[in-house]
């Protein structure tokens, strides 16, 4: 890495705390400003003003917002304490959030492997057929797949595969876990993705993802196929299969690899709709429930985890990019 790139990365890293501060404060304030009162949720059957006041004071909700924010952040930074859930009584946020992330990550990992192994060949196929009818047809097909939101695809998948044909169960997560890994800590041992229940959610998550990988692969492959060294390789008489694998694909997969890094971060994110519609107890459904139930600390933790991973991932992608492609230099300004 040259000095320009290094100073560019240092400058970006210095911005990370500022960005995270603003993001966290805005999220915190937004949660507090909203309608609905979590105290009433937490109070349960004790519905008198005295009980409300007691809970309010115990949770520090009687203080001004900036003071609440200070107390919260102090807990996060000094004790790694993400707070306490309002909906799940007597549970810490971290006790609920990390198992949920793990469940979502199982699905996302399977989907990533599946969609890459289908999307890359499809993209290369489309690029090789440029100028024939197969290229626009395959692009249109990709775009069509991307146009079907899971809000729409999941109900139809459930209707046909679960209700009409009865091939698959309608819930997305096994009630009794078949596959467990006992060496994992309690709450994490179930590998729910290895079950018949997981098939419908995996299909729903995969359809648009295949299309995205296919389109990216096609675009990058076309870019490389136009390079002079590819023409040279062909002119030398190297067989087409070798030109494609050695000269084209290797270079086309370079930009693709940074996108794969980004989607590795995406493993930690859940899908709101697929998880909610099929009942997977993952992070997406947790977020859905947390917003509905005004579960302040839970919302805060989910948003902040998303922001932290995104910001760090984009920096990691930049670094990896300069390592695998030395031509790229950041921060170099003409003039």
């Amino acid at each position, binding site marked *: 890495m040259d000095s320009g790139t290094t100073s560019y990365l240092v400058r970006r890293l210095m*911005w990370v705390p*500022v*960005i995270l501060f*603003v*993001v966290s404060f805005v*999220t915190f304030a*937004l*949660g507090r*400003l*909203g*309608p609905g009162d979590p105290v009433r949720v937490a109070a349960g059957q004790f519905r008198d003003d005295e009980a409300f006041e007691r809970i309010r004071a115990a949770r520090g909700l009687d203080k001004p917002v900036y003071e609440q924010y200070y107390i919260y952040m102090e807990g996060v930074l000094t004790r790694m304490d993400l707070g306490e859930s309002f909906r799940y009584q007597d549970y810490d946020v971290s006790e609920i959030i990390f198992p949920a992330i793990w469940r979502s990550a199982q699905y996302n990992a399977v989907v990533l492997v599946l969609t890459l192994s289908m999307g890359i060949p499809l993209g290369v196929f489309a690029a090789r057929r440029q*100028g024939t009818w197969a290229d*626009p047809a395959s*692009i*249109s097909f990709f*775009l*069509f797949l*991307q*146009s*079907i*939101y899971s*809000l*729409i695809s*999941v*109900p*139809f998948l*459930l*209707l046909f595969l*679960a*209700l*009409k044909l009865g091939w698959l169960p*309608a819930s997305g997560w096994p009630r009794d876990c078949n596959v467990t890994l006992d060496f994992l800590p309690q709450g994490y041992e179930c590998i729910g993705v290895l079950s018949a229940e997981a098939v419908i959610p995996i299909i729903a998550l995969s359809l648009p993802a295949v299309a995205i990988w296919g389109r990216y692969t096609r*675009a990058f492959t*076309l*870019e490389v196929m136009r390079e002079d060294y590819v023409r040279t390789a062909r002119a030398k008489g190297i067989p087409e299969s070798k030109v494609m694998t050695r000269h084209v694909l290797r270079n086309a997969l370079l930009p693709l690899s940074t996108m794969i890094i980004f989607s590795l971060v995406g493993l930690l*994110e859940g899908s*709101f*709709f697929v998880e909610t*519609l099929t009942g997977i107890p993952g992070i997406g459904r947790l*977020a*859905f429930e947390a*917003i509905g139930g005004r579960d302040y600390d839970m*919302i805060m933790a*989910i*948003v902040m985890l*998303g*922001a932290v991973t*995104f*910001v760090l991932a*984009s920096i990691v992608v930049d670094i990896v990019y300069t390592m695998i492609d030395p031509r790229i230099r950041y921060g170099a300004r*003409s*003039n």
Partner: protein
Amino acid sequence: MAREAIEIAPSPISEESPVEQKAMSPTRLALRRLLKKKIAMIAIVFIIMFYVVGASAPLLSWVGVIPSYNDQNLDNTLQGPSWEHPFGTDFLGRDQLSRVVWASQTTVIITVASLITGGLILAVSLGLLSGYVGGWVDSAIMRVGDIFASLPSLLILILINATMKDQVRGLAADLESFTGIGGIVKSGAPDYFLIAITLSLFGWVGGARIIRSQILSLRETEFILAARAVGAPTSRILFRHLLPNVANIIIVSLSLGLAGIAGSEIVLTWFGIGIQPPHPSFGAMIFEASGVRTLNVHPHLLAFPAAVVVGLFFSFNLLGDALTDVFTPRAR
């Protein structure tokens, strides 16, 4: 392919050769390339039809072609498609076809409003400013953009709409009593307003970044130097010299953002925090119809709205793809 290449590249021979080469502006060239794309043209026709029908929903219902979105007929609920109700009726006996048309109006309002506020005004002005002025203005705008870009946008969109709805309604009620104009809250305008504003708040970053990077390289070019040398004021340089040169990119980035904007409104309403009933939205229609038992007995409730939504998104995606192709000749 080959014919296009000849048209674009002005080879030195063609100047002397007797074959007359008609001069064409880049915009006309791009338009010609677009017109040759059949699939894209079908998509454009579909989008135009959708917008015309959606925008004229009040007119259609005033003329009497379709009922209003909340005309209920409780004796005639949950009917399948028929000549009288081509898309069937819903659980309140409302005509599904008219609900779809009125829901299209919602999509039209939201996409146009956030495209103009976020995609055009915010993105273009901030991108121009950031790229041309530079210095701390540039840093400030780009860092604010970083903050917006690093938020998990769907989650925050849901959060803002869930928390700010009552505040915005309260403001609208104040406005009503202050101006004496009734029915602002009842018309659902605050809901539309809030969604459009939040979407444009998140929608400007990508466009502004692209425009900025183009301006950065354009401002070093000779023709800008020449304009400055003859004493053109900054506003003239910005709007007469720089803006036309980034117009292509603006069009492409706007078209790529359309499906996302329309989709966000549907998603928010699906969550129950977007457009509130009885005002129609595809999000609410999909939500109400997507229970598996409901879907099994009354598939028409989901099939028709879903087909229109998928058709629209497909057209948006085809259009965006085609425009990218047309305006970035290197990628062809």
